[in-house]
């Protein structure tokens, strides 16, 4: 991640969030993965039923797990699950449907096991621009009063980026994805199919988020190992179709941006007017929000692939106290590389389905 490109798009807004990188490369993980060196801390013998541990042993396991997580490793129980699957007579698990499994096998891959990564993260609060300026860096713009004369309601507007929030989201995602990728690597996988990246805000603690990534590790028998397994949020069928037509998924990529709009009096004035006009302050914030998020998505993709497909965009506007609004854009897609530009072996057949509409 040291080969990060300098930020583009002018005023420092398009820069990568520090610590950002393609998910599969494991942003939060130390390069040599200390958790894997030597005997893992507190490793429990295989076959010991986990439900029958006494309290002291449970405590020891929890401490060993925290120790491992802090050093970029996996919790004890995850390690044990992987060891069980790899051992002689171990069965693979998968969350692929029967049809997906058939499609994955038809594409030449075999399932190895379900893999998971999770991180619970607290995102710090960022204080207002009006009093603290753009302390966190990122995009900001000031909207002065357009009237050019002093009046009671005169107010300057600000648009500013919540960089702390963005950084936290990216890091939490990286931790979850890297833990999942580490599990997959442990199993000797070439990739992870059908990754579901879930993001929740548990109740109770302000700024708490949980990222969970779940998928099925797959491998191509006989093929040389990859430095990082590929990850994709595509279904088994989609994976089969994609590889069959000359594209290979590289990594799940994400681009986010959060911009707060503190309206100035120019905006208030326009909203109250009788004329039908554009509101430049929010228009600008929404445009920049999209531009920055997609730019980040493409930057993540540029490190691993040729482009991104299946981008899903979630744009939301939260009301904040005092007329302010937080525009938040969350985009997610699968970065792909093309390995063959040739068309499909046979042109797709045009067909009419003899099935009633649902």
């Amino acid at each position, binding site marked *: 991640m040291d080969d990060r490109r300098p930020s583009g798009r002018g005023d420092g807004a398009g820069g990568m969030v520090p610590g950002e990188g393609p998910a599969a490369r494991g942003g939060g993980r130390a390069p040599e993965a200390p958790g894997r060196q030597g005997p893992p801390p507190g490793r429990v013998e295989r076959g010991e039923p986990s439900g029958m541990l006494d309290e002291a042993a449970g405590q020891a396991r929890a401490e060993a797990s925290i120790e491992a997580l802090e050093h970029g490793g996996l919790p004890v129980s995850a390690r044990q699950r992987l060891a069980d699957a790899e051992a002689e007579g171990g069965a693979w698990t998968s969350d692929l449907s029967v*049809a997906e499994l058939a499609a994955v096998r038809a594409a030449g891959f075999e399932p190895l096991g379900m893999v998971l990564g999770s991180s619970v993260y607290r995102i710090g609060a960022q204080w207002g621009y009006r009093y603290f300026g753009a302390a966190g860096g990122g995009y900001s713009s000031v909207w002065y009063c357009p009237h050019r004369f002093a009046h009671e309601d005169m107010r300057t507007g600000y648009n500013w980026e919540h960089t702390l929030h963005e950084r936290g989201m990216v890091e939490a995602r990286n931790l979850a994805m890297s833990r999942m990728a580490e599990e997959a690597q442990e199993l000797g996988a070439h990739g992870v199919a059908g990754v579901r990246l879930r993001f929740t805000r548990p109740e109770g603690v302000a700024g708490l988020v949980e990222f969970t990534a779940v998928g099925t590790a797959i491998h191509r028998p006989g093929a*040389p190992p990859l430095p990082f397994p590929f990850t994709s949020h595509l279904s088994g069928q989609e994976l089969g179709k994609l*590889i069959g037509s000359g594209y290979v998924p*590289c990594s799940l990529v994400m681009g986010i941006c959060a911009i707060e709009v503190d309206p100035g009096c120019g905006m208030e004035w326009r909203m109250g007017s009788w004329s*039908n006009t554009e509101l430049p302050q929010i228009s600008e914030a929404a445009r920049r929000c999209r531009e920055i998020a997609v730019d980040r998505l493409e930057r993540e993709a540029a490190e691993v692939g040729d482009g*991104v497909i299946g981008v899903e965009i979630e744009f939301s506007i939260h009301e904040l106290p005092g007329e302010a609004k937080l525009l938040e854009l969350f985009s997610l897609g699968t970065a792909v590389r093309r390995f063959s530009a040739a068309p499909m072996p046979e042109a797709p057949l045009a067909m009419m389905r003899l099935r009633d509409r649902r």
Partner: protein
Amino acid sequence: MSTGREPLDRQDRGPVAEAPADAAIACLREGRGERHEGRVFSSDLSVDEAILLKEVGYEPRGLVMASAIYHVGYTFTGLGQSSEITTLSEAMAQARNEVTHRLIADCRQVGGDGVVGVRLTIDMFEPARHLMEFVAIGTAVAGGPGALPRRQRRPFTSDLSGQDFYLLQRAGYEPLGLVMGSCVYRVGRQGLGQWMGRQGQNVELVPFTQAFYQARELAMERLQSQARQLGAEGVVGVTTTERGHAWGSRAIEFFALGTAVRLSGEEHRNLRPTMAVPLDDPLPATDPRAIRGG
């Protein structure tokens, strides 16, 4: 249309030298293969759309987006008579034109010849204050069978999906652009006497029927005149919507949207579809709500 490659009826679909899975892994390991050149693209194409567009020779160039936040408020026009509120019709048309223009500018910037899968939506930013966000999102693509002549023209826009686009090309048509027509209409109130007199009767409200007719006709007429200006042969996939937006029951917008097309070759090519009984179950798509969280 014999410019460049002919992917539609290609005969030289030779056997693939290497199993795709092995070629894929080699590509990930060593970066080998016929990679895309130039800018890294993003796209909201599904896998199926991406591979069908590749089949007709289009390459994705980037996700393009445009938005404009407008204040489009209700204008008082008097009671009684039903009539078009031209200031609102014009404001809506202007806002949509503006986002389409921005979308095309964005498309040019990423080197696209056109935009597929355009979704043109209006989000109510703050309904009480008549703030509307006009948004257009699509994927810019370049290439295709008519790549050479099209480069000199304005990029096309289309709300067709990748599948529709593939079929359109195979049938011998080319898209020219999105066409739309909008008419904001105010439905007049009936007098109290009329209202009293009609209670307990089944009657057609002829003035209302006439008003709705006229509003729809105006919207469709505007769509057709845009299509004529583009030199289109026809318009496919016209959708019509009737929405009150934030104006309550006072005014309704009739909006028609479609893609203008014309034959790119001599004549229509028949696809001769095969009848099929599918054995697969419908797959649930990825639920974006699960990603965003509650």
